[in-house]
């Protein structure tokens, strides 16, 4: 009743909580979008193990034989390929992205390994300076079919001849492929790499971990998804501990602010409680009432804040992130869980101030119009 009749006093309180929740959820969700982008952009490596020779080109066939003979799980296709790279955009600046050079047949196998998708345009012709990319890559680069993707004049996206995009595959994973014959003829250095697929994709992780141990300290380098995960986690561990401190401080500041607001708000309330107490309401009933009201304001503000934050993130994603294929998860559970301390801290602070006031409180002072 009080809350509704005094909307002018209640709404600012709710507003502050909404803003605080939005702020915290927003910061965490944006931060989270970076590792999410890494996992999405390089998610293709979940589908296979990459192995490159180290220091000695001639190692590739040796490695291939070793893997084929010793692999702990049944193997699927093992491809020899070449790789070049291009530059993709992220919210934290440019990232390198691999452009794999494969044979005609391997390109198709590769695509179906990543889940497949509808091909718009056509596949690159054997030996031609042409590329096929997945839709998120095209969106990220802002390119369409017919646009030049790599060129001799672009140091960040280099190829000795202009490479045109001739096909776009509609699929989630990020992928860029070109014909191996063209790469062999024009690109440097002439290093053959291996792409090793477990027969059953569920065995891929086991194969990856085995290869990582098997080739440790040898003339080979292993690229596997679990390593990517590990590096990403390590990279962000420090960032997240800083984030925790910042958000912790934010919660303290907001709580102090809210406690002061609540204090002013309750100074007005305490007059009412003096009268009600004089009329025969017990302290505990009044305390329960004010705590229920506080809980309503705090939890209500929090829930509205979650809703508003979700909407805001949806809008940010639609307007700023999607057009460049940046990742942002508006349903990021972690972002929302970071806001849980806000209502709790505010409720505790408010309860503390109310109880404090109720302890030394004489209703006669109120009905006699003396100050509380």
């Amino acid at each position, binding site marked *: 009743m009080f809350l509704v009749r005094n909307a002018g006093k209640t709404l600012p309180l709710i507003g502050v909580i909404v803003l605080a929740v939005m702020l915290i959820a927003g910061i965490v969700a944006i931060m989270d979008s970076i590792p999410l982008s890494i996992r999405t952009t390089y998610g293709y490596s979940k589908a296979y193990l990459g192995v490159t020779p180290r220091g000695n080109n001639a190692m590739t066939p040796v490695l291939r034989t070793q893997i084929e003979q010793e692999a702990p799980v049944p193997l699927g296709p093992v491809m020899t390929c070449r790789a070049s790279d291009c530059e993709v955009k992220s919210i934290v600046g440019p990232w390198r992205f691999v452009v794999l050079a494969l044979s005609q047949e391997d390109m198709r196998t590769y695509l179906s390994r990543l889940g497949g998708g509808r091909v718009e345009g056509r596949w690159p012709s054997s030996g031609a300076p042409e590329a096929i990319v997945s839709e998120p890559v095209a969106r990220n680069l802002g390119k369409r079919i017919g646009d030049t993707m790599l060129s001799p004049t672009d140091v960040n996206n280099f190829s000795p001849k202009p490479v045109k995009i001739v096909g776009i595959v509609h699929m989630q994973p990020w992928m860029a492929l070109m014909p191996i014959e063209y790469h062999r003829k024009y690109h440097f250095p002439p290093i053959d790499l291996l792409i090793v697929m477990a027969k059953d994709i569920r065995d891929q992780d086991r194969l990856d971990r085995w290869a990582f141990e098997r080739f440790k300290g040898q003339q080979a380098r292993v690229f596997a998804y679990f390593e990517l995960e590990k590096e990403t986690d390590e990279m962000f561990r420090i960032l997240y501990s800083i984030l925790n401190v910042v958000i912790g401080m934010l919660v303290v500041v907001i709580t102090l602010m809210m406690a002061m607001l609540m204090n002013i708000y309750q100074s007005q309330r305490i007059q*009412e409680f003096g009268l009600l107490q004089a009329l025969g309401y*017990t302290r505990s009933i009044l305390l329960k009432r004010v705590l229920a009201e506080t809980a309503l304001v705090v939890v209500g503000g929090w829930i509205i804040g979650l809703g508003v934050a979700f909407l805001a993130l949806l809008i940010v994603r639609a307007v700023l992130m999607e057009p460049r294929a940046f990742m942002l998860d508006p349903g990021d559970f972690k972002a929302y869980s970071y806001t849980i301390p806000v209502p709790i801290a505010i409720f505790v602070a408010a309860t503390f101030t109310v109880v404090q006031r109720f302890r030394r409180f004489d209703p006669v002072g*109120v009905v*006699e119009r003396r100050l509380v």
Partner: protein
Amino acid sequence: MIQVDKASLVYNDHGRDVYACRSIDLEVKDGEFLGILGPSGSGKSSLLYLMCGLKTPHEGQVLYRGRVVQAMDEQERASLRLNRFGFVFQYPYLLGYLSALENVLVAQPSGHRRAEAVALLESLGLGDKLHRLPHELSGGEKQRVCIARALLGGREVIFADEPTANLDHRNGVAVVETLVASRGTGSLVMVTHDPTMLEKADRVVTIADGELVQ
């Protein structure tokens, strides 16, 4: 029904003890209209607070139907004020965000007494102002809302602390008459510094400097 037995109330005035009431003996009988007369600062309000349990005597005691009020727990004392006593404070104190009718209903949170509250306000001449907020009422109208609040539910004792202090004489007399007429079978204890307001009283006692004078 209410017995004040050698009760004293002491205020601490910057380290010095001030007796607002000193060793007062007084009885309120069932159904009577008791007037308490005294100049400003004589301890009239303090005496009322002692009688209704809002203040605890430092010496002596107050008994309600033979039970010592200060020995009751907070719950019980609150329930006395909620269900058996009605209080009209010196200043008409209403909740600003509630209508006249809702302000009256505040006095009986558990009961369904809407009809009774409407009837009370009507009998007090506020039948057409039930939905006004306090700031839309005059001083005398507010005082009458307070009276309705004190009367709601039928009380055993109505305490009225200078209910006429802020009103002109004519309105003051009207308020007293309303109180006398609406209290039903309950007692009325009214405090004032104006003897003309106590013409209808069954009994009048005088208080000066915290002590009863005969």
